[in-house]
Every structure is written in C-alpha cells, then in structure tokens.
C-alpha cells in the first residue's frame, strides 16, 4: 500500500493550491463535525431525560380511582368509590402476573396548612402511607438511616422517612435527624430515614418535601379506615405490564360494581407505554441527526468532487504524459480516487477529532459544574458522548464519500484520449 511515488503525487496535487484544498477540506470537516456534535448532544439529551426518570421500574404502572361514567347494577353514573385493603388482597390472589404491589395513600398534600411540627419549626409537607415494596418501584436514594420495612408495617410503628427538603426545614444543617421525633398532625413519629429523589425538576422537588410512613399506621392513626389511594404495580419478568393492567382492572371493576365498558372509572398510568414513547422520540431525534449530518457531509463530498474535477482538468496534460509512458488506466483512476479519499479522510478525521473534543469539553464542563454545585439541579443534558462505533461508522462513511467524490473526476481523467490529453494546454 505504501507507494512513495503515489503519495508524492497526492501531496503535490493537494499542495499546489493550498487555499483551495483547505477550503474544500473545510466542507468535509464541517460535515463530520456537525454530525458528531449533534450525535453527542442527542445522546446527552437522551441520557439526561432517562436519568430524570430515576430508577423508575420500566415495567410499572399506577391505578387510581375516578368517578364512574356509566350507570351499572343500579348505581348511577358519576359515583365516587375508594380502593381498600381487601382490593389489595384480591389483586394479589387473582392476578398472578403481578410482581410487586404497593398500595399508597396520601394523608395530606404539601400545599395546605403546616402539618408537620418539630419544636418551633413547622412546615407543610405531603404525607404518604407506604409499604416497603414502593421503594422498589420508584426508588429514592437513602442518605441516612433506612427505608420502611416489614416490621414497621407489622407493628404499625409510628416511624417516618423524610425527604431532604423536610430535613432542611425542620432541622438545622448540623443536626442528625435520625432518631429525632417530628409531630405530624398532632401525633409524634420517629424519623428513621432521610432520602433524596432520583428524578429531576419539579418531580424531584415534590418528592423531596414528602414524609413517608407505614400505610396501616396512616390508615389507623388518622382514621382512614382501610382506604387505599392508588396502587403501584410491577409485572413479573417477561410479562407486559399492559397485560397486568388489563387483568387488574377487570378484578377491580367487578369488586366495585363498575361497568366493564367504563374506561374512565379507574385512572391509570403505564410507565411501559411512556418509555416506549420516549424510545420512539429518541429514535426520531437520532434519525433526524443522521439525515442532517449525512446531508452536510454529502455537501462537503460534492465540494471535494468538484475540486477533484478541477485538479484533473489542470493535470490533463500530465495525465496524458503518464499514459503515453505506459500508465495503465487503473493506475490513473486509483490515483485520483486515492487523492479524493485522502483529502476527505484527512479533513473528516480532523472534524471527527474536533467534534469529539468539543463534546468531551462540554461533558467536562457539565461535570465540573455539577461538582461545584452542592445541591445540583438535575440537568436535562447529561454525559454527552460519541461512542466508538459511531465514530467508526462516520469514518467509514467518509472513505466511501471520498471514493464516490473521486469517481466522476477519475472517470473523466481516463475518458480523454491520451493524444488529446497530451495536446491539452
């Protein structure tokens, strides 16, 4: 492959008009640069958004009660009803596809009166009744202490796991909240855990100003009977959560005398579907990036093709001499192709390096910023990166582009009769 005469010729041709070569190379450089930066950014956006979902189980769903919209079994429409503890048991018994089942009940929302007190400090927080399994469906990061466990539930302990925002309001920064007591609507609870959300934005804020206590403690202490606010459910491995959703709804409709045709009575949110939607979105973004990137790369390659036509024209006579001396056509064609590929690949390689460099720089900047900020807003843009496969694909595309760009000029070079080429001035 290494043929000194060939390389001498390539660099002579490219050096002859440096400005022209540089300008042409810039087209390809820019094409690959844009492609790489866009791919990196797309990845960053995807990482950020996925990270914002936290450790949310992708096979999870939620169900809550709404008003009925159809009359059924003598009940008129618009009726309100509640899930309860017997529903929980019925779901467990009748829908074997359920892996985790976490009934939840919200005692108070955080935007009412101050409901949590510690000494002179008070705050308004959301109070949730939970089972330990909930932390396996929408996990939080435990900073201190522990999450609720089965013992807490079995003994109906008055214990609470609090979000960081709650701690900020009720405790001084140096205080250790674990083991301390807080008063929730007049009843004392011992703090056993402190957590941080894994989501970002408003979702995280909301979650971090909540207090979680055992479900049955909430029901009994505050006179909620056996009411359940909503269910969080995950499906067993290999089973679609949509299937579980349908089965669970059948069970619940029957138990609460809701018409099988009433789609509105049980509200639900299926994370699986949302993830699929998001996957579709990012596939779309990626496709768009490739289309635009390849487009600008193509424009660069056409520039190379154009300039190669020029070079071939300039060197018509020289090519004529080479052919008179006995250069076979393939030698001429491969020479032009090589020139085109070398120009494209060199320029593209620079673009690739600069693009990856910029993406890495942004990454470094983001990481540094996140490290300097003690209480980071979780960003929508995280770890932009270009993976090796993509870089390799881009390089391959470059070589192919270079070859295609050189094809027409090379054809032109050998299509002229040697005698005409020799006479060309």
């Amino acid at each position, binding site marked *: 492959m290494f043929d*000194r*005469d060939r390389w*001498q*010729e390539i660099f*002579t041709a490219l050096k002859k008009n440096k400005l022209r070569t540089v300008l042409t190379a810039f087209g390809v450089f820019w094409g690959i640069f844009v492609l790489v930066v866009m791919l990196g950014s797309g990845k960053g956006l995807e990482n950020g958004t996925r990270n914002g979902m936290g450790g949310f189980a992708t096979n999870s769903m939620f169900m809550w009660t709404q008003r009925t919209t159809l009359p059924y079994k003598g009940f008129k429409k618009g009726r309100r009803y509640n899930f309860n503890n017997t529903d929980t048991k019925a779901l467990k018994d009748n829908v074997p596809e359920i892996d985790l089942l976490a009934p939840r009940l919200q005692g108070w929302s955080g935007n009412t009166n101050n409901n949590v007190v510690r000494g002179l400090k008070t705050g308004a927080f959301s109070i949730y009744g939970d089972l330990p399994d909930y932390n396996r469906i929408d996990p939080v990061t435990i900073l201190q202490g522990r999450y609720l466990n089965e013992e807490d539930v079995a003994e109906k302990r008055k214990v609470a796991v609090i979000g960081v925002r709650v701690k900020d309001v009720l405790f001084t920064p140096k205080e250790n909240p674990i083991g301390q007591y807080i008063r929730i609507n007049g009843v004392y609870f011992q703090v056993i855990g402190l957590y941080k959300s894994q989501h970002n934005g408003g979702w995280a804020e909301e979650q971090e100003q909540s207090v979680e206590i055992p479900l049955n403690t909430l029901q009994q202490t505050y006179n909620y009977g056996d009411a359940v606010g909503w269910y969080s459910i995950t499906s067993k491995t290999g089973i679609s959560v949509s299937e579980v959703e349908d089965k669970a709804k059948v069970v619940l409709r029957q138990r609460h005398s809701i018409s099988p045709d009433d789609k509105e009575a049980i509200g639900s949110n299926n994370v699986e579907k949302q993830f699929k939607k998001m996957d579709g979105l990012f596939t779309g973004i990626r496709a768009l990036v490739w289309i635009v990137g390849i487009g600008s790369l193509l424009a660069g390659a056409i520039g190379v093709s154009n300039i190669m036509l020029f070079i071939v024209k300039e060197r018509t*006579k*020289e090519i004529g*001499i*080479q*052919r*008179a*001396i*006995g*250069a*076979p*056509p*393939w*030698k001429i064609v491969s020479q032009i192709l090589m020139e085109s590929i070398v120009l494209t690949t060199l320029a593209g390689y620079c673009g690739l390096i600069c693009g990856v460099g910029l993406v890495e720089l942004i990454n470094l900047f983001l990481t540094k910023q996140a490290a300097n900020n003690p209480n980071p807003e979780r960003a929508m843009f995280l770890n932009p990166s270009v993976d090796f496969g993509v870089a390799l694909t881009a390089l391959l595309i470059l070589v192919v582009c270079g070859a295609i760009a050189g094809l027409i000029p090379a054809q032109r070079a*050998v299509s002229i*009769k*040697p*005698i005409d080429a*020799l006479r060309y001035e």
Partner: protein
Amino acid sequence: MNNKAIISVKNINKSYDAGINKLHVLKGIEFSVRQGEMVSIMGASGSGKSTLLNILGILDNYDSGEYHLNEVLMQNLSEKKAAYYRNQFIGFVFQSFNLISFKNAMENVALPLYYQKVGRRQRNKLALEYLDRMGLKDWANHMPNELSGGQKQRIAIARAMISKPKVILADEPTGALDSKTSQEVMDIFDDINNQGVTLIIVTHEHDIAMRTRRIVRLRDGVIEQDYIPQN
C-alpha cells in the same frame, strides 16, 4: 542488422470529423521499418505526419488497414492493452519534453519502470545509469524547471530508453531547441541508433532529417517519397 520488421503499416486510413465534412488525413499509408533503422518522417503541416506518429505510438486509432508493431496487430485495443504495449514497445520523445514537473530528473527517467512495477531502488539505480550515459548524472536530483531545454530533452530521451523499447518515436524532438543543442540531441540519437535501437523522428527541419538514414516524405496523407538521403 537483421531484417525483422518492427513496424509494418498496411493501407492505413484515418479521417477526422470536422463538422459536416470528413477530413481524410491518412489515405492508404503503406510502409515498414526494420529493426535498427533510423527514419525521419517529413512533411508540411497538415500532411498527416503527426497523425501517423500518433497511430504508430498507439496514442490514436485508425479507421481501416493494419498496423503491426513487433509483429503484433494493433487494432481495437483496450486502453489497458494500449498502455501495456506503449510501455513495453515504445519510447516517446516530445517537442515540449513533457517531463513531470514535480518529479526530479532521476524519478522522471525511472517513471516507465514504475508502471512495470520495478522496485524503487532498482529503477532509480537504472535511471542513474541512463542519466550518466546522457552526461547528466550530476543533475539527477534537479527538478525539470531547473534544467535547460537540451538537458530536459536528454532526460526525456533517457526516459524513453530506460524500458528498452523496440522503437523510439520522436515528435519534433528539436523543435524547441536552438541549432547547436539540436545537433547535440541528434548526436545522442546517432549513438542510440548505433547501439541498435530503432528510431522514428518526425521533423520538418531539413538538416535534422538529413542526419537520419531514411526519409519518408508525406504530402496530403500519402507517402510522396521514401528515400535514403545523400550527404
């Protein structure tokens, strides 16, 4: 000197399209050149001498007739074949030297061997030998634009010789040189011919033609005269 015909041309016709009219340039040319001959082709411009040389050099094709080079019929060749025969059988010397500007003297001389896939070291060694024969060994690393016309033409001759061709075709080799240099170049051709190399020189200069051993005079596409010059 043996009698094998290196070049044998039978009833060659060639015409060009010139708008509506056809320009009949060669009208049934017949002649042959035996190994070791030194022939000049003369004629006024438009007589067809350059066209004939191009056909002999397989740079151009012809309409009808037969052309045998080294007893191989040269007809309807693919460009690949044509390039091969040019490389194997023919050495070219042009009026405007036609050296490759970005290669030095030695590399220019070695170029035909490059297309024969001779290794770089080997072909440069050979090129130096041929340059030495032309008295240009000291100029081996000079670029063409640093050389005089006579030097360039000597390099071109060395380049034509290096592949040991059956015939050297020279198209107005002295056309761009002063008369003193022209005579020097002709001295070299004499030398080469004495070593047994066949030479065909197209020229319109009488004194150049007189230094060859045979003159073929073309006029309007036919051979008008084919004679041995008497000094």
